[in-house]
């Protein structure tokens, strides 16, 4: 069944509502691509902030007995650095990709709940601002990113510092949970015809798995944080030592969340790399089903290893042995992924674009972090490693060498799809090498520091411990990363205007997102494509690449997207000046596609919800809390009772 829609000669049109242009178009947007970009820019901003914090840490540790910052400030710096990088950088940067890519990859016009999606973003924004506003009150959180009780309880941390942390994380949790339900529904329900689960692009798969980790792990930390919040504000006893509380409760709850969390941080990056490697090897992904299953396995096993962060806590030999074995088991599915990536490149025709380099960087560097992870998994041995710089080395290899490298690969790969232009490869090359060298120079010496007995989270160390030279190197390395990041930032902003025009498919991609213009029109697909294999675009453009891949071969022509009678799949890029204009394509209305109405209701609801927490931290200011809660409930009703799409017909 098809309707024929007439289009006017010129597809350009003027915005008809204030929500369709300018700042309002961002504040009121429900478009997953715009929300994705909001996530993207916000998290890159926090990356700079978290990086500056790291740079100060490295400056302080450059010399022994250094007094660049006070002990108190140092503690705030590493707490905020860790918290920022995890909750305000890697998670939302991954969310930027979820938002931007999932609907494009699965052939949908938007996510299942577009307004909830906007709400998630605004809550996240509020949470990040809330957390960092503590700097201006000289009360930045200082309990470490895992905030062990009882240090974080009121008797030992009377100030506002921990209040900001507890409440900030609580707010961010709401954002992640809301987004989790949304993406799960989206992936289950919004796939294009023919895209059954085993044809879904691997990034979408890893994103799918990640959402489950989020919706199952975040409730646990929500509860743990709620206890702490109640203890701090309302005098309950959950972590109150005097009342007989057990500090291990916090630790177990935190790590029950915390370990799945690290896979929340890495799986999206794994997914991105699994998209990049095949394209630049000109080969399908090696062992797609196994890649899917190993992702699921990693996630599932991830719920059974949490206590490996507590080997020094004295859980007893049986628990130690159990968690040791389960932890080691995770190395198996992860190893499968590494080897399958190698298999993907094997026999390929490798093109070393910047995206590819970062993807290879992940394979090379994550492995190092993974191996040190396995070294921690042996409890007796971990007693010599835990809380030393050896751990710091481990997690920066997996987080920076893994997650960040993967996300950078994704950024270079998808920048053209997001902006319509390519990033400069030369600058990208500088960015990559400075980052890769700097990263190793920063974090490799930390292995030695840890093995040489340097504890982590120390604001300064004594001279003559044999730690000076490795700390020097680490600090130099951080400087290189800063330099690399400057290349990246410069590249990013100049390419927005001057980058080469990308066209639909600059890399020869295999999946649906490369079929549509860059940047895509707000409705993504004028016709929802029918999918016949895992690599729909290759089937059409480079069938030789997919001859061995299972797919049903009929109906391939349905892949065409026709806009204005032309197949845009092969159409040349829109002319230069109009590239970024939202009006470069026929409007959804002209095509008869119903898209959600822009609305600021989610924004209002998010800020009202956030304000309830602001009232809480202002010594439980009831007028503020109640007013904000009322506004929240009101805007929620207002939102839920308004239809998603404009009233019509």
């Amino acid at each position, binding site marked *: 069944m098809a309707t024929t829609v007439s289009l006017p000669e010129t597809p350009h049109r003027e915005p008809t509502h204030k929500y369709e242009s300018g700042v309002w178009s961002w504040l009121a947007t429900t478009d997953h691509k715009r929300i994705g970009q909001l996530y993207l820019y916000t998290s890159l901003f926090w990356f700079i902030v978290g990086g500056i914090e790291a740079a100060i840490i490295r400056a302080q540790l450059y010399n022994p007995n250094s007094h660049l910052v*006070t*002990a*108190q400030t140092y*503690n705030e710096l590493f707490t905020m650095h860790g918290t920022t990088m995890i909750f305000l950088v890697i998670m939302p940067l991954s969310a930027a990709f979820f938002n931007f890519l999932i609907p494009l990859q699965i052939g949908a016009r938007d996510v299942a709940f577009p307004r909830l999606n906007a709400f998630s973003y605004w809550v996240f924004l509020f949470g990040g601002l809330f957390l960092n506003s503590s700097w201006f009150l000289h009360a930045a959180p200082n309990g470490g990113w895992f905030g*062990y009780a*009882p240090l974080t309880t009121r008797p*030992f941390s009377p100030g506002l510092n921990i209040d900001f942390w507890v409440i900030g994380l609580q707010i961010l949790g709401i954002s992640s949970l809301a987004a989790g339900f949304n993406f799960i529904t989206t992936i289950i329900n919004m796939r294009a015809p023919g895209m059954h689960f085993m044809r879904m692009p691997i990034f979408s798969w890893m994103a799918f798995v990640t959402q489950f980790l989020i919706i199952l792990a975040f409730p646990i930390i929500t509860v743990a944080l709620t206890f702490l919040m109640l203890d701090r504000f309302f005098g309950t006893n959950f972590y109150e030592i005097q009342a007989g509380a057990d*500090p*291990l409760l916090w630790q177990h709850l935190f790590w029950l969340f915390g370990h799945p969390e690290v896979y929340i941080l890495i799986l999206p990056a794994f997914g991105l790399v699994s998209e990049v490697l095949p394209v630049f*090897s*000109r*080969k399908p992904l*090696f*062992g797609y*089903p*196994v890649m899917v299953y190993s992702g699921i396995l990693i996630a599932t096993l991830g719920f059974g290893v949490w206590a490996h962060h507590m080997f*020094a806590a004295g859980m007893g*030999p049986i628990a130690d*042995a159990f968690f*040791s074995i389960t932890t080691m088991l995770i190395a*198996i599915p992860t190893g499968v992924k590494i*080897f399958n990536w*190698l*298999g993907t*490149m*094997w*026999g390929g*025709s*490798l093109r070393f674009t910047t995206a590819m380099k970062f993807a290879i960087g992940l*394979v*090379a560097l994550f492995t190092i972090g993974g*191996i040190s992870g*396995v*070294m921690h998994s*042996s*409890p*007796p*041995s*971990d*007693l*010599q490693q835990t*809380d030393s710089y050896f751990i710091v080395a481990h997690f920066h290899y997996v987080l920076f060498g893994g997650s960040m490298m993967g996300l950078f690969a994704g950024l270079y790969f998808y920048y053209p799809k997001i902006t319509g232009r390519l990033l400069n490869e030369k600058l990208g*090359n500088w960015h990559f*090498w400075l980052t*890769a060298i700097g990263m*190793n*120079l920063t974090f*490799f010496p930390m*292995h*030695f520091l840890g*093995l*040489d*007995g340097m*504890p982590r989270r120390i604001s300064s160390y*004594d001279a*003559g*411990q*044999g730690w000076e030279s490795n700390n020097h*190197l680490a600090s130099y390395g951080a400087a290189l990363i800063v330099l690399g990041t400057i290349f990246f930032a410069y590249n990013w902003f100049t390419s927005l205007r001057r980058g080469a025009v990308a066209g639909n498919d600059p890399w020869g991609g295999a999946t649906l997102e490369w079929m549509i213009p860059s940047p895509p029109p707000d409705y993504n697909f004028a016709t929802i494509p029918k999918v016949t294999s895992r690599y729909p675009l290759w089937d059409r453009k480079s069938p030789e690449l997919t001859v*061995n891949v299972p797919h049903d071969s009929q109906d391939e022509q349905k892949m065409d997207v026709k806009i204005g009678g032309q197949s845009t799949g092969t159409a040349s890029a829109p002319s230069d000046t109009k590239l970024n204009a939202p009006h470069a394509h026929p409007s959804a209305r002209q095509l008869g596609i119903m898209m959600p109405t822009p609305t600021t209701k989610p924004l209002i609801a998010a800020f009202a919800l956030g304000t309830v927490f602001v009232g809480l931290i202002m010594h439980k200011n009831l007028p503020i809390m109640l007013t904000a809660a009322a506004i929240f409930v009101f805007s929620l009703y207002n939102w839920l009772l308004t239809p998603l799409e404009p009233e019509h017909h």
Partner: protein
Amino acid sequence: MTRDLRMRWLTPALALLLAVGLTACNSFAPNTIFGAHSDFGHSIDLLTRKLLYMGVAVFILVEALLLYILVKFRDRDGNREARQFHGNSTLEIGWTLIPAVILAFIAVPTIKTIFETQAKAPPSSVQVEVIGHQWWWEFRYPQYGVVTANELYLPVGRTANFALMTKDVLHSFWAPQLNGKRDLISNHVNYLWFTPDSAYAWNGFCAEYCGTSHAYMRFKVFTVAPREFDAWVAHQKTNAVGSTPPATAMATDTGKASAATSATAAKGTTTPGNAKAPPAPAPTPVMNVSDTASATFPRSQLPRWVVPRTDPPATLTFDQSVTGDVTRGATLFKTAPCIACHTIRGVPTAAGIIGPNLTHVGSRTTIGGGLYPNELKFLQLWIKNAPAMKPGSLMPLFGKAEKGDTPGVYTDQQIADLAAYLSSLK
């Protein structure tokens, strides 16, 4: 190899290698976890080495394969044909099984070591209660009735069984050269035990973040010959008050470095022939303290990395013209606010338990949680303004004219007297 390739890959790759290589050439590592000097330290060492070899092997395998692929399959001239295949079950099963086998090889010794190191400590052990405080260590020897702070004495060759507890937040007890760490957890008692096998002085650290001065919560461990330990215990049991410090306290100690001495480790004078062999096999240099030596570890011969080098804050000054008087200090101390927090056995009024036991404070090598050497200069500054000497310190400032929450009460003269008195408590 084309020139182009060399330019684009080789230079940065070499820089990368160089960067990593640089980091390994630093061999001065006084706190290294390798070659640990206790029985369980050895077991852990052995296990860690196994893990390390496994890790290095896997690392080389993966990275070499990766490099090979990158060189072999690069699309040099832009028209390389990719071989099209999308999987291989045999291979995939293979690289599922091989890691599993490798892991089994490390899992077995892991489990063995877990149960070995967490068995019950022998009843003949020296019992030590380790009590963590923000930010200092209290060490109690219940078998001997001895209480001290920040410095542990342990007999070589006898198992020391630590009962780990905390007065406030979590801490972690770690002397990397002796054994792994274990956390101190509120409302829990944790245990850790091992048998030191060489006599020496070691650094210890708090390894669990515990607040502002976590970095400054250090301690020292002195492993000494058993007889020496007994002498130390006997001395610690006496009341320091009014007793003249043992004549031997700082005098004739000699140390000997064993044959395997490395230049970095042996700082003591080597006076051969005067000492017995170390009681247990010593893989690395052992300072052997003579039988006749004092109950105090030879301060003059401490390895230099055990002596703190922290500078006191520049803003903190002390009138150098005053000299303290022990008797005046003793009189002052009896009624000073210090007694609310500190115990000095023999001074009936001084029975506070908030701060470290000062009975033999003069015989310790460090003060302030191992942050400063125990010298008059540092003691004076400490008493004058502890929170400036150590951020967040729970000991208030006492120096007149020092700024703080509550103004101080003592002139430099009074502080000098107190310091003189305290350092006389050998």
